[in-house]
């Protein structure tokens, strides 16, 4: 009887001890000692989600622990972002952030989820936007379209994918750089905006390559320019906006971000794992199917890229709000 009770007591004590051990933070040199959460501030199924899942599918080999994708959608990405900011800065909770929530939404809605709240770990990839018009449109080059806007201010109907979204933002940058005016019509996402152009209810839009490729192949749409620093691999004949003479680059990036205060040693370890991961062949193939190229940037490098983007965007937002 006493033996029995003693064993039960031992069992309870042991369990408590184990729980305590789990609660005590693991020392940094052992990082990572448990699975790492990658919080996605969006709902399922978007390109962000698909990229995150591609990352998670190979992460175990390079991190030594599984990477778990946790969906926390809502509030234009603010809900998930804030959860990571409030999490313990130990490297076990990361955000799979992006331009949408962490630059644009942060600036426009004044949400504290920008570069001041995060330490970048690694940028995985980024997609440029593609300026596209209907196949039978009169403009053969991007410069012609801009000239048209110059001659007929406010005449060109531009379908954006939502206020301050991935199409609205680059177009505002271009209009500012070229000094032109256009008629800015907001649609509820990339699909409806593309439909509006195809149906003749708008003249142009910015889209992403995977969505536009089949339309371009069928002659229904024509791509005139891309907003990246370089031309796109799958649209080699389409020049960049910069080549066309307007100093604008804009890409939608996806990056792993850690809360401020995460130890440098942990950030370094994560960065190294993500760097190796970004060279993984099956990972690269998966991302390519999504129509993107992997374009890795480390913690320091990306911090600069992000800060530069943030400052440009801040000026634009401040100008628009006046």
């Amino acid at each position, binding site marked *: 009887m006493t033996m029995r009770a003693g064993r039960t007591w031992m069992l309870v004590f042991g369990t408590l001890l184990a729980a305590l051990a789990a609660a005590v933070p693991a020392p940094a040199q052992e990082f990572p000692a448990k699975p790492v959460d990658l919080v996605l501030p969006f*709902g*399922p*199924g978007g390109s962000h*989600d*698909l990229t995150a*899942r591609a990352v998670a*599918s190979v992460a175990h080999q390079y991190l030594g622990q599984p990477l778990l994708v946790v*969906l*926390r*959608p*809502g*509030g*234009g990405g*603010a*809900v998930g972002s*804030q959860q990571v900011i409030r999490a313990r800065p130990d490297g076990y909770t990361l955000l799979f952030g992006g331009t949408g929530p962490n630059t644009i939404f942060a600036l*426009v*809605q004044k*949400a504290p989820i920008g570069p001041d709240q995060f330490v970048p770990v690694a940028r995985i990839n980024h997609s440029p936007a593609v300026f596209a018009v209907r196949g039978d449109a009169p403009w053969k080059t991007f410069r012609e379209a801009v000239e048209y806007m110059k001659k007929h201010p*406010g005449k060109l*109907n531009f379908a954006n994918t*939502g*206020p*301050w979204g991935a199409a609205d933002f680059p177009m505002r940058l271009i209009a500012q750089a070229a000094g032109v005016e256009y*008629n*800015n*019509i*907001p*649609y*509820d996402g990339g*699909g*409806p905006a*593309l*439909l*509006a152009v*195809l*149906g*003749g*209810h*708008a003249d142009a839009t910015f889209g992403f390559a*995977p*969505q536009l*490729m*089949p*339309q371009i*192949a*069928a002659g*229904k749409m024509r791509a005139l320019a891309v907003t990246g620093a370089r031309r796109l691999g799958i649209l080699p004949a389409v020049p960049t906006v910069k080549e066309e003479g307007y100093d604008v680059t804009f890409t939608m990036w996806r990056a792993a971000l850690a809360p401020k205060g995460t130890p440098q040693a942990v950030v370094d370890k994560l960065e190294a794992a993500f760097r190796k991961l970004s060279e993984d062949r099956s990972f690269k193939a*998966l991302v390519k*199917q*999504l*129509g993107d190229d992997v374009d890795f940037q480390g913690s320091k490098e990306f911090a600069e890229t992000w800060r530069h983007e943030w400052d440009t965007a801040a000026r634009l937002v401040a100008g628009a709000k006046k």
Partner: protein
Amino acid sequence: MEILSLLAHGFAIALTPTNLTYCFLGSFIGTAIGVLPGLGPPATIALLLPITYGIPPTSAVILLAGIFYGAMYGGSTTSILLNIPGEAASVVTCLDGYQMARQGRAGAALAVSAVGSFIAGTVSVVGLMLLAPPLAAFALRFGAPEYFALLVLGLMMVGYLGGGSMTKGLMMAVLGLLLGMVGLDPIMGSPRFTYGVFKLAEGFEFVLVAMGLFGIGEVLVNVERRVAPEVLKTQIRGLLASREEWRAASLPLARGSLLGFFVGVLPGGGAIISSFVAYAVEKKLSRHPERFGRGAIEGVAGPESANNAAATSSFVPLLTLGIPGNASIALIFAALLIHGIRPGPLLVSEQPAVFWGLIASMYIGNVMLLILNFPLIRLWVRLLEVPYRILAPLIVVFVLVGAYSVNNSVFDVGTTVVFGALGYALRKLDFEPAPLVLAMILGPQLEAALRRSLIYSHGDLLVFFQRPIAATLMALAVLVLLSPVLRWGLERKLRELVEPVAPRD
């Protein structure tokens, strides 16, 4: 003839044991999640998406599409039995389906909705096969002004949803419009009624509002009654529908199928809108509109077939234009993308196996769903024999878990509870929640379409009357608005003709 050989080829693909299994799995999972409130087809498809990476693209599409249209079958079950809309498109089914259940006709309502779903699904696949390209061209002609006119027409239906007072119905609609405004405004992106809560920036999730207003509200009203609700006392008369009931349901089934097919082609919530419009149409055409809201079988048959037809025809924009029309189809789009297939105008000619395999699997899937759902009816009806004191807490748990599963968020659970309390208060004060729900769905779309049209036309209101489709729809809306006045005038005229006004003394 060419179509027949292509279809035969499609069947050859869809009937392989592997694809048949995926088709069954999809239909089965779809039925299950349709029954579960909260967890809808988009979330389920997203969960299963990684599994489809390893299987051939045609099988992947067959599986995911099965989940999507299967959910439309299952969605009506909880609407009818417990007044909980399993899917957004099943809200209207609550109105008469639940009343039928209370009168002991749950089996009939379930049978009619299963057969209605089957007929509508099949009609819609035939339409999809034969009419996809011209329909896509038609959908392309819908710009913002056309949508606006269609939505105005849709909002007119509010008048037909309430059984009681028109004033109360309109008050509910206004409340719904206001609730629909919570969140970032669709044109400028500035927050409205969010009070700094980021969670509210995307507005109220419609499913949560519907589950609270209908499901929780109903439970609260029921538990305060001393006597058990009639459901338990009434003998369940003849399990399935009677001959008269089938006869009454047949025309609404046909109309619902056609209506759902055409409205579903338009991207953006076609299934939901078509179910509301089908209900209004049936009530308008009925010789006894007063029966609606009290267990009219037409009020189940019309909307249930419409939402199924719309679910199928919402594949048209994806398969012909390469543009997904709703969240579930967007995920199917993503699944194809992963396999290196980019849906677009050339899909049918470049990937005939995917297109025809999918079409054939939809024929098979609809038959499977009918076979799967019919025996289940018996089981579901038995559920109502569970004593309410046990059933009620189960329903509440079921709804709250469902609410949590939408976004894994406790805030959402709170939202559902708050709307449950509102639903209870409304019920006690004799307000109908249905107009609120309709206005909440249509309001934001109406606003966006109106402002979009006016930006397009540089502020010229004539844009709604100069374009043929928009003008026709507007004329219809005016006609619906004036119809009571017209009818009153006509009836007076007739009376005068029949019995010349005799001076009374």
